[in-house]
């Protein structure tokens, strides 16, 4: 059994992060309530999402205090998902344009994605 057992940190840090998560969630909700659109909308959505995810991972899941070997083993593989996302974005765009071209309708139709 390794010496990592008993990962105790002062309980106050959990309360601070807990509060922070509520704040970020509230801001995320406000992005929709205040009807942000376009680039600003998805930039804010992504920023708050990564902030919340980061704090949950680092503090609640103790990742900040784990050895680097585990950090790498867990965080590096999901980066491969980004490759999948990039590939699928390209393909989806192509599919969308192909559907417009082959349906015979003009590409000037506005579509809410």
């Amino acid at each position: 059994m390794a010496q990592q057992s008993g990962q105790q940190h002062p309980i106050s840090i959990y309360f601070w992060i807990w509060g922070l998560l509520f704040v970020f969630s509230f801001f995320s909700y406000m992005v929709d309530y205040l009807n942000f659109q376009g680039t600003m909308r998805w930039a804010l959505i992504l920023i708050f999402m990564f902030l919340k995810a980061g704090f949950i991972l680092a503090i609640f899941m103790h990742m900040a205090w784990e050895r680097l070997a585990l950090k790498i083993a867990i965080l590096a593989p999901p980066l491969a998902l980004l490759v999948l996302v990039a590939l699928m974005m390209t393909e989806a765009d192509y599919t969308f344009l192909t559907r417009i071209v082959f349906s015979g309708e003009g590409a000037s139709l506005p579509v809410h994605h």
Partner: protein
Amino acid sequence: MSEAALTDTGDVLPGGTNGVVADFSADKQAFQMPWGKAMMWFFLLSDTFIFGTFLTGYMTVRMSVRDAWPVPSEVFALSFGGEPIPLILIAIMTFILISSSGTMAMAVNMGYRKDRNKTFWLMLATAVFGAMFVSMQVFEWTKLIVDEGVRPWGNPMGAAQFGSTFFMITGFHGLHVSAGVIYLLVIALRVKRGFYEKRGGNYEIVEITGLYWHFVDLVWVFIFAFFYLW
């Protein structure tokens, strides 16, 4: 950066990047933690890929359809006799899940302090929050299926694929939450009954349970952002 660690045989492992080399080239174990915790991390990694691929599939479909995608803030609005409030149920669900993560973190802390009573009640609170979340999701599903006529193959509001992606992703997540509630209750009862005292007073299991529960919250953070807000 991580600091030096002590293995069970008394060797000192360096921290930082030297530590990565030392860990991966060690002869007994690569990850200096109880095997149960390492295995939970690896299960969560695999689950990350499951949800990641589902969300990527949803992205692909939403980007490639020509029909308008139903606007989430309208679809998921609720009115209490007045103007419809956009996403209010989802906001409440988010706050419930965050609250549950807080009670879980405290339960882990109490577990390491060997306070069995507080650990039990905090794990129970976490499970109750989880059950509330699932109930609200069930309400949401019922509303969409019965009132709005949403099916995996079509809906009156827009792109036909909305239903299948929504039910698949939130369904898988809800299943994970439900499994987590059961898991929490089982471990909480064991803690209360002194099961882990008989096994040497080791409460790492609470932390392992906590890892699973925080993962469930983490997935919701992504679903909330990509499905409901986008």
